């Protein structure tokens, strides 16, 4: 039952045209929901959550640092899956996704590094340390940049997707290293206080705004991916009738 639903979804969203229609329906709702959720979480976290008894107010960086970091990691996992599907099954939509997921993920990885450094200075006394967590996160940013660069350098989009897909798959190992680096080896970075399973060790007054900003940023990531995927679909299907019709119907004043 579940398997069949997944299979149906796979085939429906695997069709570029269906994807375009589907995303046209989703985006007008998803965009405002994502923005409101993110802003709610951030305003709550910045202005209303209590200050930390050890770190004072510098800890408020957590409300962007953790959502951005988790978003960058999840985005890369999705990139790895898209890479696998693109390389093994040559599915067109997976190739599109490979292109659509990377840019926002790279931005989030950069945000994670910068906010982490700005949080580290007042807390640890240093902006940067070449330890397992920080180094592997920097590599994650490079993996994202590598996937984007490969797609830009190789002219043929199908060939580009194969190369980028392989790189995306290999990079998944690094995501696992980032995730468990704080448990496996000694690092300056603290372990996770938010747990999906079991008791979180973060104060609930800080946990809720954090969860809300996390959800908001993830939804915004989804919006960004849908927007970029639509552009890519339109370009790849430019010789089809349905795109031609879409382009002639003047939506905004044509130049």
């Amino acid at each position, binding site marked *: 039952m579940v398997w069949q639903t997944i299979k149906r979804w796979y085939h429906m969203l695997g069709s570029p045209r269906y994807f375009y229609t589907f995303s046209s329906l989703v985006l007008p709702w998803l965009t405002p929901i994502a923005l409101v959720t993110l802003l709610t979480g951030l305003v709550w976290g910045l202005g209303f959550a209590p200050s930390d008894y050890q770190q004072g107010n510098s800890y408020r960086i957590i409300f*962007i640092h953790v959502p951005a970091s988790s978003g960058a990691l999840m985005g890369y996992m999705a990139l790895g899956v898209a890479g696998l599907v693109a390389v093994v099954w040559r599915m067109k939509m997976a190739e599109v996704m490979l292109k659509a997921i990377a*840019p926002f993920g790279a931005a989030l990885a950069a945000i994670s590094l910068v906010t982490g450094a*700005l949080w580290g200075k007042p807390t640890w006394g240093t902006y940067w340390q070449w330890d397992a967590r920080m180094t592997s996160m920097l590599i994650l940013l490079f993996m994202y940049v590598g996937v984007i660069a490969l797609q830009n350098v190789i002219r043929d989009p199908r060939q580009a997707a194969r190369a980028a897909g392989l790189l995306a798959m290999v990079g998944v190992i690094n995501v696992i290293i980032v995730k468990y680096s704080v448990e496996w080896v000694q690092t300056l970075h603290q372990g996770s206080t938010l747990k999906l399973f079991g008791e979180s060790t973060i104060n609930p007054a800080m946990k809720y705004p954090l969860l809300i900003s996390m959800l908001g940023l993830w939804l915004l990531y989804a919006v960004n991916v849908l927007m970029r995927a639509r552009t890519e679909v*339109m370009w790849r299907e430019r010789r089809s009738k349905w795109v031609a019709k879409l382009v002639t119907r003047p939506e905004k004043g044509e130049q």
Partner: protein
Amino acid sequence: MAFESFADFLAMGKHGFYVWSAYGISAFLIIASMVLALRGQGQVRQTLARQQRRAELDAEVNDESRT
């Protein structure tokens, strides 16, 4: 509200610089990525519309030269 005044809120204890530059840079990167995604959409649309118009013009010219 966790702060006494707006000035307090801006000061963030002694850590205003770190907190606000972290959020400033994050906002910049997120907004930039959204704007680039939007611009890309517009550009592809424009390019395709232009190509289509050119193709239609070419077809008209061909028709006229034939008659």
